[in-house]
């Protein structure tokens, strides 16, 4: 592989809890992500997935280890990465369009230009007609579409997605998976996608990383062989079922009794 887009080396992080004892959350996590690769991360809940993504985004600092984007160390949040959050976390006082504009506004893009660009992303995620709705007027699926558009609008090199569909119902979730893939085919990006759904991980990603329970370590890395564009049918293919079984085994192995 040429120079990786993203290099994670030896990330370790713990949180201080109570009277100064430290709870380790990440332990020596290292891997590299190629340009335009779609990587899914699965792990049991509470293992440290969100913490990991926050470190990659630059929101929190690791205790040791580092994240390199294009060979340069990440020291804080920046426009190279766009994050889609687990609980949507839209700004309730901004309309859909206003939310999508947010990152561009922070970058200092002039008003008219950022409005036009945000409108384009609104259309891409299928929210035309809802640009002036406030988040409380939108369904969960629509809110997360705004969340995706908000992250894409800053045209990040790496898209970080933290269980973006975890709180949606199954139908909406399946629909949004397909739409995400369609968007990704058109606007290729490097993606780190955290989920605890094994199927979702296989369906979306080129590669699946399996984290152990807290403290999260890398348990296993699996390549996903399916050609793109992918359709629902692959979910019932023997290869898919076998891969799912393998990941499931690995997740179980990680759970030490």
């Amino acid at each position, binding site marked *: 592989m040429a120079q990786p887009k993203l290099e994670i080396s030896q990330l370790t992080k713990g949180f201080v809890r109570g009277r100064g004892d430290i709870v380790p959350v990440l332990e020596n996590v290292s891997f590299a992500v190629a340009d335009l690769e779609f990587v899914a991360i699965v792990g049991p809940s509470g293992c440290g997935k969100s913490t990991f993504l*926050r470190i990659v*985004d630059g*929101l929190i600092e690791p205790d040791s280890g580092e994240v390199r984007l294009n060979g340069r160390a990440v020291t804080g*949040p*920046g*426009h190279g990465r*766009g*994050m889609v*959050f687990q*609980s949507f*976390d839209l*700004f*309730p*006082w*901004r309309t859909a369009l206003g939310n999508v504009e*947010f*990152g561009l*506004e*922070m*970058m200092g893009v002039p008003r008219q230009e950022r409005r036009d660009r945000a409108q384009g992303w609104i259309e891409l995620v299928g929210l035309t007609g809802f640009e002036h709705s*406030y*988040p*409380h007027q939108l369904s969960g699926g629509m809110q997360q579409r705004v969340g995706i558009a*908000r992250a894409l609008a*800053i045209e990040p090199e790496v898209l970080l997605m933290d269980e973006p569909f975890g709180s949606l119902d199954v139908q909406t979730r399946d629909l949004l998976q397909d739409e995400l893939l369609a968007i990704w085919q058109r606007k290729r990006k490097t993606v780190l996608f955290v989920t605890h759904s094994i199927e979702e991980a296989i369906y979306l990603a080129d590669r699946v990383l399996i984290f152990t329970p807290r403290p999260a370590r890398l348990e296993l890395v699996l390549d996903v062989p399916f050609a793109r564009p992918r359709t629902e049918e692959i979910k019932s293919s023997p290869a898919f079922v076998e891969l799912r079984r393998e990941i499931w085994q690995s997740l179980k192995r990680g759970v030490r009794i």
Partner: protein
Amino acid sequence: MTRLGHGLPLMAASMVGGMILWEMAASGVSGVIFAPPSVVLARLAQDTLSGVLPMALLGSLAHLAVGFLLAVAVALPLGFAIGRSPPVAAMVEPVMNAIYAVPPVAMVPFLIIWFGLFYEARVALVFLMSVFEILVTVTVGARNVDPMLLQVGRSFGANRFRLVTVVMLPASLPFVFTALRVGLVRAINAMITAELFLAAVNLGALMKQSAQRFDMAGLLSLVVLLCLLGLAAQEGLKALESRLLPWHVRPSS
């Protein structure tokens, strides 16, 4: 809109019901002890048309407005500072909570000594009675800004200053409106308290006169006026809020 649409008939029904109860309670009782709403409302209309009530009300509103605006000007920035800065909170909050616990009427003797009996003392009482209410509410609001939203702000590149202006301030606006509402009600209380406990002027003077003359209808018409004033202030601020913050869904509605 729908909130008002559903609430309006109920509100009207409760008012009419109250009137009927009041009328029944007052029937057959001497006018020195109690007066029925028909008489009180007639009196209210009469004193309004004669200009007596509007003049007194204007006088009262003058110190209400100044005292309340001063309280807002002090309490908003201070409340944000206390809510967002632990050191400031550690310094100010104990003192604030201690003074908050003192009954406002207990402050009147001090105000008389410091400000005399007239306009300045009334403004001071309005200020004192509303400033803590606003301060406490704004502090809670600033403290409870959703940390996830602040994180989203940082993730998208907002620096410390922008975090305050584009995330924290808008996130606290609903609390600011609540603070203004409770503060204004307290300020109206203080307005009339000041006119009764300091030199009697404006509405307070009218109340004292009515009481001395056992003029129950006059006294009750002033109480009704105060009720209407409080109601108008609250509904006005609520209307302003739904106008300015269309995104905010009040939990109670």
